[in-house]
């Protein structure tokens, strides 16, 4: 789960990390009032789950409250990477001397949380990794001990020669690690971590991604989810316990299992079609899931044909068949449907479908070919 910068900053602040004040506005007038309260120059930053906000025009300086109003107006009208900006963070502009990068992420290769730090912060960290890898330090953390003080100091000295600044950075990294672990994070990032002319080390930005599997453990974190900043169909699918990713094609796919779902999309492409989505109904069989899946898929006007590909293991294919029958009775389909199912209770499922006027196939390739030809035929 993605959370906003202002939410991540709140978590980091609670962990003790020094972060300048800031307030969230949902309108230009609010942004103006906040800027007036802070006085002086402020930064107005789009709160949206997308990287590259600066390049997209989502981060602007404003010297006066009136200017804050104007830039907030513009930013609140932006769409960044398909996501509309609904909130802005208004924060006093800081005097920056140097910019560094600090991040912690779970790494599959070392099977640990790994710190990444670089004295070349403020810019795209992928660029640093590619062009000047010597400026990026990776440091795996032993989960039994956490980030120990001497380890944090080693990272601090990689960023700053000055011992006072290195100590301040080390403390921030230990605080970041504890915020990361105690929130169930899969990524926590400060970019940039800055030094000011007064010698302070301060986090100017904050980013956190939470492991979805941890949300049951941390209700307060789960409550941070901002559904207004996500794709509505993906929100709908999540609430129905489906894994759904919207794509641009016209063959709507309903599959059980992520690997088979991906292989099905690949096969749609192989036979010259384009998948409209990734949708995994998961392992447990429940007709309600199929009803929800069909509702979500048919709400996409691009979908010209629907393809079911179910290999029943835990999933009982008769449950899927019942779901299809129920869903199409509630909302008759306007596009053709191709159903492939095989596995657990296949005979019952095929009979249910036949009795309700559906035909079903048992071969994956044949089903995909048929769905593609129906979709392209309809599109032509």
């Amino acid at each position, binding site marked *: 789960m993605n959370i906003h910068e202002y939410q991540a900053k709140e978590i980091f602040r609670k962990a003790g990390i020094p972060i300048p004040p800031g307030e969230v506005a949902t309108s230009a007038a609010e942004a103006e009032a906040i800027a007036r309260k802070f006085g002086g120059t402020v930064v107005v930053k789009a709160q949206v789950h997308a990287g590259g906000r600066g390049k997209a025009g989502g981060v602007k300086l404003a010297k006066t409250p009136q200017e804050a109003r104007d830039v907030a107006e513009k930013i609140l009208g932006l769409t960044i990477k398909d996501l509309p900006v609904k909130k802005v963070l208004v924060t006093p502009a800081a005097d920056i001397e140097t910019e560094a990068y600090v991040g912690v*992420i779970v790494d599959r290769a070392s099977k640990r949380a*790994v710190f990444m730090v670089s004295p070349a912060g403020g810019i795209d960290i*992928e660029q640093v990794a590619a062009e000047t890898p010597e400026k990026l330090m990776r440091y795996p953390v032993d989960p039994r001990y956490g980030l120990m003080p001497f380890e944090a100091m080693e990272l601090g000295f990689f960023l700053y020669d000055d011992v006072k600044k290195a100590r301040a950075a080390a403390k921030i990294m230990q605080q970041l690690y504890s915020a990361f672990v105690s929130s169930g994070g899969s990524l926590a990032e400060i970019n940039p971590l800055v030094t000011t002319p007064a010698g302070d080390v301060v986090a100017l930005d904050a980013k956190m991604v939470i492991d979805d599997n941890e949300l049951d453990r941390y209700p307060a974190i789960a409550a941070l989810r901002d559904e207004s900043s996500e794709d509505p169909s993906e929100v709908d699918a999540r609430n129905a316990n489906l894994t759904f990713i919207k794509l641009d094609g016209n063959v709507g796919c309903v599959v059980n299992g992520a690997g088979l779902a*991906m292989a099905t999309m*690949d096969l749609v492409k192989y036979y010259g079609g384009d998948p409209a989505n990734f949708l995994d109904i998961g392992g447990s069989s429940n007709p309600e899931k199929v009803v929800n899946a069909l509702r979500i898929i048919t709400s996409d006007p691009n979908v010209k044909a629907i393809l079911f590909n179910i290999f029943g293991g835990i999933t009982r294919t008769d449950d899927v068949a019942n779901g299809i029958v129920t869903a199409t009775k509630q909302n008759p389909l306007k596009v053709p449907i191709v159903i492939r199912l095989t596995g657990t209770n296949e005979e019952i499922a095929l009979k249910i479908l036949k009795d309700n006027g559906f035909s079903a196939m048992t071969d994956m390739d044949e089903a995909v070919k048929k769905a593609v030809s129906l979709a392209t035929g309809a599109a032509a």
Partner: protein
Amino acid sequence: MSIFIDNDTRLIVQGITGRDGSFHTRQMIEYGTQVVGGVTPGKGGQKFDEKVPIFNTVHDAVKETGANATVIYVPPMFAADAMMEAADAGIPFIVCITEGVPVLDMTKVYPFVKEKGARLLGPNCPGLISPGKSKVGIIPGRICTPGNIGLVSRSGTLTYEVVFQMTRAGMGQTTCVGIGGDPINGTNFIDCLAAFEADPDTESVVMIGEIGGTDEQDAARFVNEKMTKPVVGFIAGQTAPPGRRMGHAGAIISGSAGTAAEKMEAFEENGIGVAKRPIDVVQLLRNN
């Protein structure tokens, strides 16, 4: 022969009285797996289906039954503890079916299990089956048939698809292993490939990967350098949009974006036949 499990596997089920645990325990017994006990705290002393003894702890179960393998069906928040309890009780082979285990939990489980000398398969995996001998997990028995091909996969239902096509084409299996799709898991491709290489009955191997990480690339190099048996492969996610599941910071560490194209190229470079479609696996095996 087979890998990891065979006729001598003595299995306990952690979470035997739960919805999934009880259903699949019956399926495993029906397939012929020796299920010697189960664990559900608070139900020690009772019997499952009037025949399988239930214990409060894994230590008790091991002491009484001499179990040498366990399969875990407990809810995600308790799965990490269940894996560590099994390793602590000295069980050498641990299979965790549970989906949704927090990845930070796995950063603790992995070194713990390793120090105890146990092999962990999963989490978030379908388990494994040595057709005609034993099955541990949820792979449907009727889609498999005994033979001399080993199969290892990161996926569940896609594995069923490929195994079923193989079975229909008369190509039986020594063992089919699902290693699971989580970022941190106990057993990887290389572990399984090495076991198949050492298994005298396995003549060739099918490897089914998917996008994300670099396990397949590492495995491809292993095949080239260490294996004498032919390997064919398939990668799911050739058309997946980049960056939806895996953050860019992850890609920085591994130095790879983990795309299907990258993995298929690694397969080809290392002499692994690449199937364009799942069904093509059958033809590639025929060509061996």
